[in-house]
């Protein structure tokens, strides 16, 4: 009996769903994010208007003053849909847990400077109430907002703010004890220094327009607060007492995107390309030791090194032997390793041989 194995290529009839293809303008393979986001917002066939807002539909564009032709242009640059979001957060959480373990197992919290500990607790513990406010506001946006592109990002941000609040709580429990949380709540409710911020957070709870709420929470408040709390204050504490608290606030510090737009490496235009000269270039590639060694002293192992792309005579270092420098300049390996050695020089040998004959 003979069995033939054969490769059969089965090409799918369609690359993606029709509504995604309409959106992309062609039937081409789409990312999971695009497939899980575009056209997911419910738009028609709502049966009843909600009792709590009988003027409008269940999902209604009119709950904000913002008008959009297409709500799906508010795409998430991180491309978070459920799968990629949970994976990314699982990774962050793993790191954060490892940091907490590290601080705990080495007793870093106990050996932390006491005045710095007081400052850290007084500052970071009340912030858990701010983070809880962020949780609530982002939840509001995802509930009453319109367009899956932005409402799903709001929901993730809502969960993230809860995570921030929880990590701040654990910071309090690790650096102090339960009474610190009570004291933090008391300061949040009563200490004059916190009242303007508390007023802002509580005022934001009654902002009805969900997009206004989005701007107030995620751009105005977080835009200022995260940079202050997890960069400026963090730096100050680091200088005073070392990086223990930085490790414990790693999650919020890494969660909040770097401030100015265009500061993300992928939103920056690529740097202008500098033509690479292979000789004498100290700043070649940074990958591995082999490549670097090749580049930094190419004449040492010139047989294996790449030939210089366009060497200028000035590039031949003075430490190079004269015969190799000539070869280097002419972009050819020297025909004779030792031009002075007439015995071994094929060009002169031929002359000798002719003379002998």
């Amino acid at each position: 009996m003979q069995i033939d194995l054969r490769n059969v290529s089965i090409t799918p009839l369609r690359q993606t769903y029709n509504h995604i293809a309409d959106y992309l303008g062609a039937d081409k393979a789409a990312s999971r994010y695009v497939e899980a986001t575009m056209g997911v917002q419910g738009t028609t066939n709502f049966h009843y208007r909600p009792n709590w807002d009988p003027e409008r539909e269940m999902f209604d564009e009119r709950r904000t003053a913002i008008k959009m032709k297409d709500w799906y242009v508010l795409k998430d640059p991180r491309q978070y849909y459920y799968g990629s979001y949970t994976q990314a957060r699982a990774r962050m959480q793993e790191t954060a847990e490892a940091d907490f373990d590290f601080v705990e197992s080495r007793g870093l919290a106990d050996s932390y400077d006491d005045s710095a500990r007081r400052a850290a607790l007084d500052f970071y513990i009340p912030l858990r109430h701010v983070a809880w406010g962020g949780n609530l506001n982002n939840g509001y946006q995802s509930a009453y907002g319109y367009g899956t592109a932005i409402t799903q990002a709001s929901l993730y941000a809502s969960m993230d703010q809860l995570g921030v609040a929880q990590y701040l709580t654990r910071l309090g429990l690790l650096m102090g004890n339960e009474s610190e949380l009570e004291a933090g709540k008391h300061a949040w409710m009563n200490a004059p220094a916190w009242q303007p911020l508390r007023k802002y957070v509580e005022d934001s709870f009654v902002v009805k327009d969900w997009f206004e709420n989005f701007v107030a929470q995620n751009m105005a408040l977080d835009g200022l607060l995260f940079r202050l709390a997890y960069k400026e204050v963090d730096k100050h504490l680091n200088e005073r007492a070392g990086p223990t608290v930085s490790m414990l606030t790693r999650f919020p510090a890494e969660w909040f995107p770097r401030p100015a737009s265009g500061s993300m490496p992928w939103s920056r235009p690529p740097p202008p390309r500098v033509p690479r000269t292979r000789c004498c270039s100290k700043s070649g590639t940074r990958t591995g030791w082999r490549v670097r060694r090749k580049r930094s002293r190419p004449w040492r192992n010139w047989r294996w090194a790449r030939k210089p792309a366009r060497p200028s005579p000035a590039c031949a270092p003075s430490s190079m032997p004269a015969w190799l420098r000539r070869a280097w300049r002419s972009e050819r390996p020297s025909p004779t390793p030792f031009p002075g050695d007439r015995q071994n020089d094929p060009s002169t040998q031929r002359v000798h041989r002719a003379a002998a004959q």
Partner: protein
Amino acid sequence: MTQVPNVFIALQRNEETRPIVDAILADNPGALHDEQPAMVKINVPGRLVVRRSTIEQEIGREFDLQELHVNLITLTGHIDESDDEFVLSWVH
């Protein structure tokens, strides 16, 4: 007339490599896209560049070019790699 020899890179065809393939096709104008069962092969005459910045634009997060190796099947050409670029060519 001497023909420029091809270099190619073959990647598994899955959700992770799709943006990488798109980035390679965007960065290499002469690229030939050859889809095979469970594999994507990209042939380019002369020189093939995989650019980190383009992949990052496609996937919306930071990318380490070493992640390429997870889904890499095979390739031809001499490799010149840096943090920003992975270049295949026959140039010494």
